[in-house]
């Protein structure tokens, strides 16, 4: 692959076309230290965030109290477990609180930290409604007042992690910010819907569960479309090796696509056709698959990004011409 520098110009004497040379094959950029803990956080908080959106919808619907309660508890659970795991990923975890030392608008991680703080707090408030709502009017009111903001924050939680990864110099992460965020958001929604579908089934609210399963499948479809766009962008930039080899390939294809998309479609299809005993188990299997598949997809993206950062040819391919955009001070 050869690309010519268009902007800005090199002196005429210098070879104008990049012919794939690297510096002894050494990496240009550095991979992040992000590992499964970060993926776990992305998945967990994605589910928790989308759960608040669903909770908000449920609160507006008659008969949605049970779903809302479960969604609020799920959100609270996620916003407790996720950050605990995330703090373990810090290399100096005892300074976790410095995440709130400053508000840095250019840093998706800083924004995310404040968002998480807000979301966690709001989820705590909405959880008041879930736990004490039946006994305490105050708790109910507080929870309901918090629900709107919690849903907005939740939507943010569901997608900001894609922005976080995209705002780096890892070629794979940075290749397609918009599709990647759509992918992550849809996966968050699919995950939350699936998780709540399982909960609703366990609580015996099968009709609600079915609607959630429908939402999950719709979201999965969106995720599939978005992932096509992302993968096309990778291929267009010559980055596909990071996702078509090694662990990311397995996770993306086997996990993200087979388990995350094909399996649920099949399970729902068979389940709805078969009915009966399978009719109960197969949707549960499908929901589980959606959650796991979404997790696998995001871990695949995470690992592919780390892999890509270590490939000098990826970095050079994606920096032959500057992307348009104004200077920001």
């Amino acid at each position, binding site marked *: 692959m050869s690309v010519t520098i268009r902007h*800005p110009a*090199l*002196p005429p*004497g210098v070879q104008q076309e990049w012919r794939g*040379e690297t*510096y*002894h094959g*050494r990496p*240009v*950029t*550095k991979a*992040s230290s992000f590992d499964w803990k970060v993926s776990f956080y992305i998945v967990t908080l994605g589910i928790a965030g989308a759960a608040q*959106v*669903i909770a908000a*919808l449920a609160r507006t*619907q008659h*008969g*949605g109290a*049970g779903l809302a309660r479960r969604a609020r508890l799920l959100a609270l659970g996620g916003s407790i477990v996720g950050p605990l795991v995330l703090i373990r990923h*810090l*290399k*100096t975890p005892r*300074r976790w609180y*410095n*995440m709130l*030392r400053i508000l840095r608008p*250019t*840093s*998706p*991680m*800083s924004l995310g930290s404040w968002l998480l703080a807000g979301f966690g707090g709001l989820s705590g408030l909405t959880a008041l409604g879930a736990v004490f709502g039946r006994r305490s009017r105050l708790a109910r009111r507080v929870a309901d007042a918090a629900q709107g903001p919690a849903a907005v924050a939740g*939507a943010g939680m*569901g*997608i*900001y992690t894609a*922005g*976080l990864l*995209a*705002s*780096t*110099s*890892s070629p794979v992460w940075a290749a397609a*910010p918009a599709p990647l*965020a*759509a992918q992550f*958001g*849809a996966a968050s*929604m699919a995950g939350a819907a699936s998780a709540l579908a399982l909960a609703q089934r366990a609580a015996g609210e099968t009709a609600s569960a079915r*609607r*959630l399963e*429908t939402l999950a499948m*719709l*979201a999965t479809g*969106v995720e599939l479309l978005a992932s096509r766009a992302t993968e096309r962008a990778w291929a267009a930039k010559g980055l596909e090796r990071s996702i078509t080899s090694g662990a990311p390939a397995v996770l993306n294809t086997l996990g993200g696509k087979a388990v995350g998309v094909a399996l649920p479609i099949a399970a729902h299809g068979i389940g709805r056709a078969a009915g009966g005993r399978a009719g109960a188990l197969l949707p549960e299997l499908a929901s589980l698959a959606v959650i796991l598949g979404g997790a696998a997809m995001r871990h695949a993206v995470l690992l592919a990004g780390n892999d890509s950062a270590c490939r*000098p040819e990826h970095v050079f391919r994606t*920096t032959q011409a*500057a*992307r348009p*955009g104004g*200077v920001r001070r």
Partner: protein
Amino acid sequence: MDGGLVGPAPGGQEAELTAGTRIEPGRSYGFFTDTTLCIGCKACEVACKEWNNLPADNLGLTGHSYDNTGRLGAHTWRHVTFLETGTRATEMPPYQSNWLMMSDVCKHCDPAPCLEACPTGALFRTEFDTVVVQQDICNGCGYCVPACPFGVVELAPEDGKAHKCTLCYDRLKGGLEPACAKACPTDSIQFGVVEELVERAEARVGTLREQGQADAYLYGTPGAPGATGGLRRLNAFFLLTDRPERYNLPPAPSRPARNARPAFLSGLATMAGLALAAVAIGVGRR
């Protein structure tokens, strides 16, 4: 202190003697690394490590020409690249050629992707317009590492914090030239006020082209390769004579933070759409 044999005149700054510049808060300081003057001696690497008390990486013999420190990282804040590009030549352009050597360093970008990524404010812009990781703040989140388009920042395993060149922040506070630039035997590394350095560097390119080194160009000054994609300029910039990739530099890096907006917008739209769909499906109804 002993006698009058040492140190600058009272009230003076050593940097005036060694770099011909006074160091004052409020101005922008940086490095102009002129590879045509570089002899690949690695004095910068050693001076940096001795001053900053950095441990050896001990990568062993790499076989990559004379580069055995490999890369910039948590313990290596100056790194000299070596690439043999035409060492069978006999007549050569003036100054360094045919065996490319460049003392790489943190670019102290403006704006700085690592700084823009840092969620704690550990990374900040000093009164000298340099970019520093404050070790009493950093919590090792590691986000600055993939943010950097040049692979400069790294987490140190032993203390769990991000490290990189500080442009000798402590020395600047005391009117001392950064250790690498002070040591550099051939003044390949020049320290000073960025605007003055840029002027000097542009004049140098002109001189070199006149003297027969037609391939000289700047990397990292406004409008040049390296200062691209939202990076206005690199406060540590370079004079090169071959394609940037030969020095392991991306020819047209971009400021990664500008990916956030399209991602957020697209993500939120997706969430909103799915929420609407959920309403349509009737999620929440019993």
